[in-house]
């Protein structure tokens, strides 16, 4: 969302700034249209692509519209769990859950866009079932 709005702003800026050259104007117009379309399409697609599934022994996260990713976090490997809220998220009543493991690549995994109460409940639940054998 942030990316598309930035691009959108850049597109509009370019449009205003380079009023003279027809070719560049057309290009900027096309870019702006594409950004508008992306802004309309991407958040919904991202939202649909995002899911998490709490299973008996692990947590499965799925995300990505073009680049798909599935992550499996065994409960026993959870080091600690955070909830985080930015200003925009606070305004919308949302929160993120951040799950930390000792892993070097996927050290922190995020579940964004949860209702604040759900996020807190999930955090507490993960904190109680998590840990035990960090294998370090």
């Amino acid at each position, binding site marked *: 969302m942030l990316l598309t709005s930035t691009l959108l702003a850049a597109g509009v800026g370019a449009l205003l700034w380079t009023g003279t050259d027809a070719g560049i104007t057309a290009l900027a117009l096309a870019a702006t249209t594409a950004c508008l379309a992306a802004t309309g399409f991407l958040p919904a697609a991202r939202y649909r692509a995002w899911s998490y599934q709490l299973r008996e*022994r*692990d947590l499965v996260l799925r995300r*990505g519209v*073009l*680049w*798909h*990713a*599935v*992550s*499996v*976090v*065994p*409960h*026993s*490997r959870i*080091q600690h769990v955070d909830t985080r809220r930015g200003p925009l998220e606070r305004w919308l009543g949302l929160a993120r859950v951040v799950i*930390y*493991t*000792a*892993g*070097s*690549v*996927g*050290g922190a*995994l995020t579940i964004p866009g949860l209702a604040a109460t759900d996020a807190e409940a999930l955090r507490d639940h993960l904190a109680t079932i998590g840990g035990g054998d*960090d*294998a*370090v």
Partner: protein
Amino acid sequence: MPSEAMAAPTAVARPHRLHAFTLLFQAITIARAFLLPAIAAVLGSADDDVGRMITIGIGVLTVPALVLAIAKYATFRYRLNAAELVIDSGILVHRRRIIPVARIQNIDVQQTWLQRICGVAELRVETAGAERTEAVLSVLGRDVADALRAELLARRADAGAAPPEHAGPPVELLARLSVRDLAVAGATANEAGLVAAILAGGLQLLEDLTRRIPLPDLDPTRLAPATSGVGVALVAAAGLAALALAILVIGWVLSIAGAMIGYYGFTLERVGDELHKRYGLLGRRESSVPLRRVQAVRIEESLLRRPFGLAALKIETAGSAAGGRPRGGAEAFLPIVRVANVPALVESVLDGLDPAGVRIRPVDRLARRRLAIRYTAPVLFLTAALTPFFGTGWLLLLGLVPPGLFLADRGYRHRGWAVGDGFVIARNGFLNRITWIVPEHKIQTLHLRQTPFQRRHGLATLTVDTASGGRGEARVIDLAREDAEALLESLARRVAP
């Protein structure tokens, strides 16, 4: 002396200071930081008032730095209690750091060549949680450092879950590298040797060419007017090639000498449940890692080493988990090893896991096509874009297509994976083939990723993440999606039974 502390482990031990030479080494550090620039300033601008002012300024700054160093030394104390290392420091704000012995990951005793002459050493203690080295005792007397390390190791073993028999843990020599081994390691450490050989061949060819063209003798006074343009170009090319060759040969020799000196007397052994390694001719390094901290083993076989059946072995241990600078990673390693000896070594390091009989399986055939597209598409695109505008000369770019196809084929062949009894293997890379062996019970998280291109081919990449702080990760690239999903699920089940 720590030996007294050992005599009465239950009592609160007496605090110790660092070795008095600490001051000397602090002074040297300060001198390097302040005085050398000052000297440079003096030499650079002897008749310049500004230069002199800078010099005096720097000189004045060294005084507080020295005072600070002395105060730090005077306030620094360490002591070894029954189950913890306690370090007091701080001039105005007192700080006490307590490191439980059971939490210690790695104990390093290091010496630079100067410290070696002075008979002192630096002791570094690392724990899992910290982003940096938890405690640095710099410097201690060599004997004190060794005794303290031995004592810490002994107490850590006592504090651990399975204390070894006190008759002294069994020592198993895993590898001892001779000077010849190290020379081979240095000679094959990078591609310099190979490039030098190719360049030497090229130079020979150039010489032959220049000889065939009738050139006047190379007396510089007569050279310029007498030679043809082609001759000059060839001579210049030969000169450049000779220069490059000389640089490469020097680099190569330095690499060999560096390996021989740096890794002199390299010894890796298993002492009870720990890996000990030591090496170095001028400086000396000793360190130990508990086997249970080993996260994975990485076998690196470069293009240059593969024909000789040689590899480097990296033993990944838990590094700084939380962000931070990746520390060490491969804290235990072998700079050179025969591939034939690797399975036995791995079995010893990974405590019984046996990779010897495991057959490595290829990834999906479509991987070859994907690599071929990746390596040739940019060339084809460039050719198509440039040729209509800038002439048919750009069609020569198509010459890059066959090498691209070759690389794609090699890339595919060198990818592989396997699941053995208690571990998973992932292998990648043609120029530097890296094989990861990850014990199941060390897996942290699992990831399945698909780029848009992979989705088009129905492929996926499986990443096996461990707590190793080192570079890279174990990845099985381009499995068929169903196979990757099945592998993901079966590994997930094994991690958390």
